[in-house]
């Protein structure tokens, strides 16, 4: 199959008409009820703008999406698909199915696989596996250093030619400032960012939770907020020096938001993302030693959480990303220190974003969607994230008001490590379409016509 990475027009793909939905295309400020026509894997047009020849065809699949919102397909630039090497946690197939179910049409996957994505064959392997088994477009991120060991740079330009969209040693920071400088110098002409897992390894030490009252009270080793912020500050200076682009992964601390805001004001090419869990939870959630509240960076204080929301609102934080990090029950069902960091996030993303940002009135729905579509692609220096005619037909249809209850065991991901099991969330995905082909359909919500 080639649902993912459908490059050109494919006449074999049956046309689709999404009827009755509220078209929300934040890239062009469109917000109105209209038909959306898809043909040959591309957006054909809105309402009357779609070609008359298409509109009169008899083989169009008309899907009534009345009451739902029709958005450009969502993009998550921070997921761990675990393939190759950790297929017990996740595969490209299961991870992208979780993506489709969560409304995502494109995911960028982190290179901390086993072995890491640090050379051309490995990046090509991921692209091929995504073609064969993927339910979403998969954009591979390659390692900054060989083996993510922090010592020798990977073949950066060759990896971009192979299809890498960014570079990161995620899971670990690029600790050596000289290597970070060289990576930024080499990526700058290629127009791709270095995505930094910003963390000073010495300040982090063996910490497992945010350093604060909770870590003091429950006796777990803390990770101070500055472990992140000093690295963000260093990278801002290196980005300024080199003109390269640094994207700060999963920002968690108020101080980091402040530094990024100042860096942007100085014209430094620095972007940032934030996860749903850092927007919704604080370190208080760790009180019961639930290992599904163990992630890196850790859940931080209320003040940090509020600063992250402010950062999203004023654009300091460019986009939202889940840091979907599957781990098996064997890994997670252990004492807190022994369990690995990370939680899954693709299927609960919408509900948590709505809860953190839209329901309290911090963002409008179009403002939220901008940060899930156009903005993450801009971070990678890519086009898209729009329903403009001629663009790939990547579409997400969802009902923001429908309530549902998270059932971790029913996740499409191979792993079920989420702290949100049993939570009631708003926002149900009705339909996910990649290149004109349906990758997820909520049967109960949709009646297919004609």
């Amino acid at each position, binding site marked *: 199959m080639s649902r993912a990475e459908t490059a050109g027009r494919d006449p074999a793909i049956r046309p689709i008409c999404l009827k009755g939905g509220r078209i929300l295309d934040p890239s062009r400020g469109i917000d109105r009820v209209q038909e959306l026509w898809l043909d040959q894997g591309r957006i054909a047009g809105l309402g009357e703008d779609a070609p008359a020849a298409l509109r009169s065809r008899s083989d169009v699949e008309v899907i009534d999406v009345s009451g739902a919102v029709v958005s450009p397909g969502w993009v998550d630039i921070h997921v761990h698909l675990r393939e190759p090497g950790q297929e017990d946690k996740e595969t490209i197939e299961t991870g992208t199915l979780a993506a489709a179910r969560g409304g995502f049409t494109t995911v960028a996957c982190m290179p901390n696989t086993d072995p890491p994505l640090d050379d051309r064959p490995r990046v090509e392997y991921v692209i091929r596996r995504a073609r064969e088994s993927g339910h979403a477009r998969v954009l591979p991120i390659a390692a900054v250093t060989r083996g993510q060991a922090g010592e020798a740079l990977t073949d950066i330009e060759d990896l971009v030619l192979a299809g890498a969209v960014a570079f990161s040693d995620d899971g670990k920071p690029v600790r050596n400032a000289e290597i970070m400088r060289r990576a930024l110098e080499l990526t700058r002409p290629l127009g791709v960012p270095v995505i930094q897992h910003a963390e000073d390894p010495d300040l982090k030490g063996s910490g497992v939770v945010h350093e*604060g009252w909770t*870590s*003091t009270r*429950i006796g*777990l080793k803390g990770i101070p907020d500055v472990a992140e912020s000093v690295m963000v500050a260093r990278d801002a200076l290196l980005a300024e020096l080199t003109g390269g682009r640094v994207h700060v992964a999963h920002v968690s601390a108020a101080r980091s938001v402040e530094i990024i805001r100042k860096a942007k004001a100085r014209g430094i090419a620095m972007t940032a993302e934030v996860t749903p869990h850092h927007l919704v939870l604080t370190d208080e959630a760790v009180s019961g030693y639930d290992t599904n509240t163990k992630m890196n960076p850790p859940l931080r204080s209320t003040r940090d959480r509020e600063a992250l929301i402010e950062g999203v609102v004023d654009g300091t934080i460019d986009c939202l990303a889940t840091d979907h990090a599957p781990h098996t029950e064997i890994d997670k069902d252990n*004492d*807190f220190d022994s369990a690995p960091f990370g939680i899954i996030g693709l299927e609960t993303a919408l509900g948590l974003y709505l809860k953190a940002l839209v329901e309290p009135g911090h963002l409008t729905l179009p403002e939220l969607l901008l940060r899930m579509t156009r903005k993450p692609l801009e971070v990678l220096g890519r086009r898209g994230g729009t329903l403009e005619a001629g663009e790939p037909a990547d579409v997400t249809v969802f009902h923001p008001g429908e309530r549902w209850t998270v059932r971790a065991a029913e996740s499409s991901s191979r792993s079920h490590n989420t702290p949100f099991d049993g939570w009631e969330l708003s926002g149900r995905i009705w339909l996910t379409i990649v290149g004109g082909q349906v990758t997820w359909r909520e049967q109960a919500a949709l009646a297919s016509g004609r």
Partner: protein
Amino acid sequence: MIGHRKDLLGIEDLGVDEIVSILDTARTFREVLDRPIPKVPSLRGLTAANLFFEASTRTRLSFELAQKRMSADTVSFQSTGSSVSKGETLKDTARNIEAMGIHLVVIRHQSSGAPHFLARNLDASIINAGDGTHEHPTQGLLDIYTMREKKGRIDGLRVAIIGDIMHSRVARSNIWGLTKLGASVTIAGPATMMPAEVERFGVTVAKSVEEAIEGADVVNILRIQLERQRAGLYPSLREYARVYGVTKERLAGARPDAIVMHPGPMNRGVEIAQDVADGAHSVILEQVTNGVAVRMAVLYMLAGRDVPAEPSSEPAPVPPSAPGRAILEAKR
């Protein structure tokens, strides 16, 4: 009072009534320990497992002794290495315990929250004998018991806790218990070993050992662990002893009738001077004796309810004091 409670994971979870009830029950068992045959049948038919994933002599012996004095069947396990390095997860350990039909589990583990993990996964009663840098509730209770015996009260008592607060489970358990019972707690130690937002425990942070000890009724000295020096948290033992060691001179600032405590094992000449450890103010060995009684009280209150109902054929023990008798006989 803790009859409804399955586990003892920390003093933070306990109400004032529960703490007082444990202390009162411990006094009854303290009397049992002075009898010619210091044994009661309270845990007869029950099996206790002492799982020590971290080295311990005193606490493990104290629990074993408490269990034997109460006629429980006892098995003990000590592993100096990490269980994880041997490939067995705590979950599997829990399953094994279940399969062996153990009623009471005493666990010491290097990871904070490990007893909570077992408590969630097992029907057996779990007693935390020290988890990582979190709590060591029976040590806290025996410290408070000793203070109450010596001073006659806890409310209004001035207690100084000196040393590595950050890594001390003894400090946390003491602080929770003492503040709940109305003591005024002052702590002192190197800034590198002072945990974040520590004042939210409701304690006063002193600028120096002298300031903390000034006017204290109780000086509780924490053990300094040598690996903290390797982690760079203090420059040298010499420096630590000079700045934070409790010496006779420093102790002179305390009340004349102050008591000196230490959870052991002591680094003599480092956190505590020789003449303080063995001096007239020291109640360190009494803490050890009281520890057995306090652990008996905790075991009794958690598991006593499960004692089989059939009458005992053993000769009745020498009757203790009236309230104690009621407690001991009600469960036989």
